[in-house]
């Protein structure tokens, strides 16, 4: 397996990373808000961890675009 994979161009890596992070962002928003803040003291929007995840993913996309 290693030999076949060794022939893949490095430019694919950044593209796949972008696709992976976008897929994770979409998956995050399939989780209902009520299950995320189930036992939180308040249900304010800043406690919605899906937006935390989206911000994180945006930072990652920026990093992988810079270090190509």
């Amino acid at each position, binding site marked *: 397996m290693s030999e076949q*994979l*060794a*022939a893949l161009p490095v430019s694919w*890596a950044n593209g796949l990373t972008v696709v992976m992070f976008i897929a994770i962002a979409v998956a995050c928003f399939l989780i209902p808000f009520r299950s995320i803040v*189930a036992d939180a003291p308040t249900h304010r929007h800043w406690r919605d961890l899906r937006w935390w995840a989206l*911000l994180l993913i945006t930072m*990652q996309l920026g990093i992988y675009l810079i*270090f*190509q």
Partner: protein
Amino acid sequence: MHPLDLAIVVGYLLTIVVVGFRLSKNVHNAHDYFLAGRSLTWWIIGLSIIGTNVSANGYVGAAGGAYKVGIAQANFEWIGAIPAMILASLVFIPLYWRAGVYSIPEYLGLRYNQPVRLLSAVIASVFAIFAIGVSLWAIALTLQTYMDWPIWVGIVVTGTVVGLYSISGGLAAVAFTDALQVIIMFLGGVVIVAIGISDAGGAASFTQTLSGENPTHLQAFLPADHPEFPWPGVMLGLAIVLSPAYWCGSQAILQRTLGARTQWDASASMMFAAFAKTLVPLLIVFPGLLALVLHAQIEYPDMALPWVVKNVLPPGLSGLMFIAIIAALQSSIDSGVNSTALMITRDIRGVLKQDQDPATELRIGRWMTLIILLGGMGFAPFIGELGGIYFLIQTLLSLFQGPMLALLLLGAFSRMATPRGGLFTLITGVAIAGILMGTGMNMLYVAFLSFCYSVLALYLAGFWTEKLDDESLKKLMYRHV
């Protein structure tokens, strides 16, 4: 050592020991000792997670890796961490938290059976003791470089300090001292980046020198035929297997989330840790690159960070950075010691002796903490003969991370994961990983292939072995969370 540096070092050591002892007053039983009485808030846990992780991944080793391969080393902090941390935060932490368990092996025991719990606890404990030895050795190496202490003196001093607060205060002491250590670590990191870039003649000059002399050192991914970090291996082995197995299954990492005051705090702590994790390469990768740009004369890559601390920073600041390194490694040791004591006390001894008395567990847990620490100290002096720190840890991890991740994922998402299938998969999966490793295959591919085998074996075993009933699965699968 400059008197100012010495004052900072002594002040730091006294502070963490005093904090540890103060928190020990709140420890009355095993629940307080191992889960901090479920009182921890999200940002304390988040900082503690980073403290545990940075050192586990090797503060010294990662700088050495960056010296060798460049910014690609940071993949262990970015694609090799962030997706898995999001998965842990939104899926696995709520699952463990609602199951009400003390440990990941305990969850596996409920989802599969007691032999799986026992076996996973034994494997994790052996690895943890080894990792504690590696961290002790890394600290001793730093102390030797910086203060000319013999290796054994560094090991004894560090073991004594960690023992003083972790044996008395349990998880709460570990989490609070970790948080303090991470703040110091980030302060030290920011200072080293600022002074380092200034010494290199500015950011533009730094990147120009680095990429001019080392063309691939500013590329996130290395070519697919790279011997250590081929990019397909990084994607398949690290991002898809090793990283999720670590972030969703490491007892040392997740134990503090189980000590959260609410489930939201537990999940938020991991997400907060992921933000800090994104910045960690500044602390642990940048010094390796800086050593390269400043043409450090070092014998081997793991000396890159101690060299930078000794030669780049002025007195006072070098003491702060020195403390940052020691703090990072100490936070790994204390977390490893506490979580391993929990697994041996509850998941190994508790299962074998059928004894879950909280008062007895507290007493045994404290003794175990001491014994594990002494075990790590005994093992530490021999690490230097075994090669690069970081590579060593990752190689060993890849042997059982594939099967472990398969058990966790299918356990959370599929009824086809059965108790007998789980035990069969864990044993054969580790064996297959060992065989693949023996063929000389890259560890990242070993992890991926052993994971693929384990998913297939566990799923197929579900056709022939008895499944748990719906009532038992109620709190153990994601669809019910």
